[in-house]
């Protein structure tokens, strides 16, 4: 029983990170109709930047905040300098349908190469906010640490902030309108391109936070976040790729599910499970586990 509970809370803390990554991918998908595979590259880059900040300042809060800000700025730049011109150019060329995806892939390759070029390929450790040693319950140490608590707390905070922005603020309203019905949004005076860039910035920030939170456990290398990308994508698909809430739920489900698999089947089954879940969801419930059929009838 104790083991089961431990697994659950552990999975929740991992799942919250997957949720963040899923949020990042969903934000971009909704606003631009591109699944941004470069998200892993962007997150790796911001995490290395964070590492540099930590080397200089030895301050964890500064490290985290600057990594997030850098991630957000970089995300905005990717949209401004790459995606926006591309959308204008590609139009209906021979590979118009796949061009954006291929470009994000090119960006991933370029960023990972660049990161390796600057910082080398060897694994590096990344600071955690709090101790990663498990709490003590009675005499035993459980595998849930203060840092795990910090992860859960931070991501919940971020999600609440997102929820507030999206549901309560004018910017959120503009973002939703621009995502669902760009032309109507423009006719209503929403500066859709700008709103889209803001979406990329939010996504970049969320991805950066996900990278900074998972790296103390996985260590840092140019491609150390590839798996996070896959899990984030799976979580996003679980939630139907359109809904932010869906992505969060998908992330937690995946995190907890994978934690259960690790505990009861062994860690070698993690990836197979995730892959099978991904394919099964895509084939059986393409709108995601909790995605609803849209009521639209016009």
């Amino acid at each position: 029983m104790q083991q089961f509970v431990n697994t659950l809370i552990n999975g929740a803390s991992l799942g919250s990170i997957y949720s963040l990554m899923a949020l990042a991918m969903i934000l971009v998908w909704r606003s631009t109709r591109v699944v941004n595979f470069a998200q892993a590259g962007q997150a790796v880059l911001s995490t290395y930047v964070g590492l540099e900040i930590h080397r200089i300042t030895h301050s964890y809060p500064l490290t985290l905040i600057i990594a997030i800000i850098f991630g957000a700025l970089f995300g905005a730049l990717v949209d401004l300098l790459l995606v926006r011109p591309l959308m204008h150019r590609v139009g209906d060329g021979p590979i118009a349908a796949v061009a954006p995806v291929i470009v994000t892939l090119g960006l991933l390759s370029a960023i990972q190469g660049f990161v390796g070029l600057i910082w080398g390929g060897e694994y590096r450790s990344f600071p955690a906010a709090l101790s990663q040693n498990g709490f003590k319950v009675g005499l035993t140490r459980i595998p849930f640490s203060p840092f795990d608590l910090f992860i859960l707390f931070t991501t919940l905070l971020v999600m609440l902030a997102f929820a507030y922005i999206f549901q309560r603020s004018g910017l959120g309203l503009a973002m939703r309108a621009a995502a669902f019905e760009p032309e109507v949004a423009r006719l209503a005076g929403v500066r859709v391109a700008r709103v889209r860039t803001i979406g990329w910035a939010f996504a970049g920030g969320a991805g950066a936070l996900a990278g900074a939170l998972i790296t103390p456990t996985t260590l840092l290398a140019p491609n150390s976040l590839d798996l996070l990308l896959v899990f984030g994508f799976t979580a996003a698909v679980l939630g139907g790729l359109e809904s932010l809430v869906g992505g969060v739920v998908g992330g937690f489900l995946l995190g907890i599910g994978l934690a259960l698999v690790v505990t009861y089947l062994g860690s070698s089954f993690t990836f197979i499970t995730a892959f099978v879940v991904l394919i099964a969801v895509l084939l059986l419930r393409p709108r995601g586990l909790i995605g609803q059929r849209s009521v639209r009838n016009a």
Partner: protein
Amino acid sequence: MRERFALNWLRIPSGMRRALLLVLVGWGLLLISDRISEFRVYQGASVATYFVAIVSIVLLTGYSGQVSLGHGALLAIGGYSAALVMQNLHWPFWIAFFAAVFVAALVGALLGVAAARLSGPYLAGTTLAFAVGLPSLANQFSFLGGEQGLPFDIGVAPSRFGENFSPYKWLFWISALFALFAVWLAANLLRGRYGRIWRAVRSDETAAALSGVNVARSKVLAFTVSAGFAGLAGALLCATVSLVTPGGFPLSLSFAILTGAVIGGVRSLVGAVIGAFTLVILPMVADAIAQGASDAVSTNLPAVLTGVLLIATIVISPGGIAESLSHLGRKIALRRQKRI
């Protein structure tokens, strides 16, 4: 006009003409391989290998309109299958190559069944997940040799080829032979019934379905055939290093193949040749640039260049070099006509 008619190869039937052309090319390649350095011969083998891999993407993305970001995984399946067959059954190496094609095609068919029902981003993400995760499986099953991998040695040339016939040349011969066989197969496939069906499905799925094409089956078939080519490429790739390891199929390999296909022109077999050469030349360019720089620079520069080239191609000329060249050719021809 009359000139072109004469060039029509004295009215040899087109299938035969293509075969003849390939034999000529093969003969030319062999002659060349005798006159260049060992290292160049080795690079030639790499070109042939990449070529097969890129043809696999051309069939899938260029003709059937499906994206795969994870072809590296199919290459891995080919490589491991070939190595397992050699190691456990001790069959001759060329049967191992066919085993690679067969197993990869089988996996491809399974993937294709799923892929036929997935669109754009979903298929892209799923194949990417496949490429990220699959190589790591090798670590978990002891018969796959773990991190060390498995040996895959195609041996040396039979003695009747002469004393001076180096292992590299042998490798090159085999790779070139398989590449020529692959291009012959692909060209025939694309000109035939399935090529037409794939093109129809790619340009308008609904219209194709309405005119009686079984869209799903055509997509699965495309995935299967493409995976077969990828399996062959994987076996060839492992033959060049005589080894199959999980580390031999990083995500960057999948990217490189895709880049080669896009740069050359994702709808063209000629483009595949251009792409294959680009992939081999790229690291040399990187080396030249990184001369004297640290190790980190020289190992990572190719990835940067790959990414930048990929993006640049899509932004500047989405049809790839092959299409740009044919545009150029048409322009020149037009101008010449006008002058006459």
